[in-house]
């Protein structure tokens, strides 16, 4: 049976939209746009404190975007927590899986550290590192660790807030000392970016793992029971 809306109206509308988008894209990239921001950005990378251009953009040129983006991540987690407590979790893993997890988790944490460091001059950075940490948490959760290796709620809260906090406070302090919001002084940029990225990595990892649990972590005593 043909449903007119689903089989005729929407597809034809989408085809028309696609044509319009394709045409616009064609005109846009064949137009006189030159290098867009590429050359400007690449030219300023040496002043940014890091040599990886993407990290320069993320943590320096457009650091404010990144700050708000960390806030978005935190919002999602707080929203998830407001919906209720986490479910009971998975049953305890058998010894083979448990052994693998015991091996992989430290490896992931190590890789995360590497990713964080390498981000300064090669692809990598806080998000990639945070994602690895988060993956470690997910792995623990899948293996039946009730709280995905995360600390109790009291200690988890500062951890997930850390990234935004360090970022925002750095911004405000820099404004107070006179440079302007998130304007790194020459020479300090590298270290400030590293500090912010480290805090962000920890927060991102913790947030992703906590979000995977799907609710507020169980209280301490419950954790102990399951462990």
């Amino acid at each position, binding site marked *: 049976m043909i449903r007119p809306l689903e089989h005729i109206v929407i597809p034809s509308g989408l085809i028309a939209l696609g044509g*319009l*988008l394709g*045409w*616009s*894209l064609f*005109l*846009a*990239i064949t*137009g006189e*746009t*030159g*290098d*867009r*921001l590429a050359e*400007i*950005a690449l030219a*300023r990378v040496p002043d940014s404190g890091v040599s990886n251009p993407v990290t320069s953009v993320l943590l*320096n*040129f*457009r*650091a*404010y*975007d990144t*700050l*708000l*983006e960390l*806030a*978005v991540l*935190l*919002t*999602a987690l*707080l*929203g998830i*927590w*407001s*919906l*209720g407590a986490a479910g009971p979790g998975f049953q305890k893993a058998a010894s083979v899986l448990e052994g693998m997890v015991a091996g992989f988790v430290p490896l992931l944490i190590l890789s995360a550290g590497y990713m964080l460091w390498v981000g300064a001059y090669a692809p990598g950075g806080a998000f990639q590192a945070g994602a690895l940490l988060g993956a470690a948490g997910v792995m623990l959760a899948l293996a039946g660790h009730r709280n995905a290796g995360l600390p109790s709620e009291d200690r988890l*809260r*500062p951890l*997930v*807030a850390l990234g*935004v*906090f360090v970022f*925002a*406070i750095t*911004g*405000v302090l820099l*404004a*107070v000392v006179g*440079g*302007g*919001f*998130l*304007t*790194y002084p020459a020479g300090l940029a590298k270290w400030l970016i590293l500090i912010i990225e480290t805090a962000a990595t920890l927060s991102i990892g913790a947030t992703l793992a906590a979000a995977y649990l799907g609710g507020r972590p169980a209280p301490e005593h419950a954790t102990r029971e399951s462990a």
Partner: protein
Amino acid sequence: MIDALPLAVTLPLIGALAVTVWPAHARGLGLAGALITAVSALTVTTEVWSRGALRADLGGWGAPLGIALEADGLSAAFLAMANLVALAVSVYAGGYFKRETARHFWPLWLLLWSALNGLFLAADLFNLYVTLELLGLSAAALGALTGTREAVAANLRYLLVGLLGSMSYLLGVALVYAAYGVLDIGLVAEAVEPGPVAWTAMTLMIGGLILKAALFPMHFWLPPAHANAPAPVSAALSALVVKAAFYLALRLWLDVFAPVLGEAAANLLGILGAGAVVWGSWRALRAERLKLLAAYSTVAQMGYLFIAFPLLAATPPGLARENLLAAVVLLALTHGFAKAGLFLAAGMVQKTAGHDRIDELGGAAQALPAATFAIGLAGVALIGLPPSGTFLAKWMMLEQAMILGLWWWLVVMMVGTLLAAAYIFRVLSRAFNREPTPYRFVNDASTELPALLLGLIATFGLGIAAQPLWRLLEQGAFG
């Protein structure tokens, strides 16, 4: 001197973090955060008032590489309204939420506030996308705080629709970057030239925004989401969040896509607005629950705002157009105050009565004179009766419509006005009954006074003392 612009965004953010870390002190910390946020944002407005448009290049890079925050008269006006309303909502929430819910409310609320201030001050198209998402996520999470199944379902729908809107907006931004190679609003405005690319980008961006602004017929998600949220959240969602989407659409329309516009596009928005006015008002009249009524009335009021587009498009640049624009802003601001007041007062009535079925509200309405007064004052502004700001705004819009010979907008707006009178008085009439005389005018100061104050601002403040708005809006535009 520290730049006030980033502070207006960062302070609520830091407040949110403090509440996140110490949830046991959520109320105190939250109120403190609310206060300093409002102070910082109002500082921005007064600075714009006295010194003209402000700009802060974050990171010191400047456009096009860095991101800037900018405040001109338009953003300063919306910023002031949003922060005053948010402050009132905060005071109200301090008395409204019990301990457990307060833990969840305050951090999300301050994050939402941060997103609002960020959105009003942003001068970068991609940064706006991030603030839109922050706004959308925090709003949906707050809306579901009642925890009922209806609330969760409605806000999930809201979240998804919001995401779709953001996606459309982001695609528009990508096209803009592809074609013009910049993201700063001012620079994009310089680069834009009429043509299919600009037209498509505009359609995608403004299309995404009207989805978020719940313009008829894309309003379907709004009534259940706003009606099922806790009262202070409903107030913020209806008064501020949808207005923010409207603000952004207006901003893009005026500052970025002005050369691209055709009257046809403006008329389309106007026609949708007219549909919203009639349909939203009608549904509000038929609503059985007070909060649903208020939510449908939001749909109708967003419609009035979009009727401004065809009027603006048809008015040649000059004094008349500036006055018209100011009238539209006045309309939006008054609606913000009034709608928040209405929802806050409705929340008190609902709490006292234990329900919000309009036909059975007699006792509660009679027992809470201050809340009923707040509903009345807010109602006067929502209907557009004098001496409210909406009355002035509608008068100016309609006068301009008549000067242009576009008399049908007058018909639409008068129909909406009469329907609004009908649904508002349907509620107010419940307060006149044979229940015992109330003992006091104000029963619970921390919740009733904010509602009353918002109603007073909408009805008297912006009606009698709206003149400064004109001066504020003269303070330089973007671009």
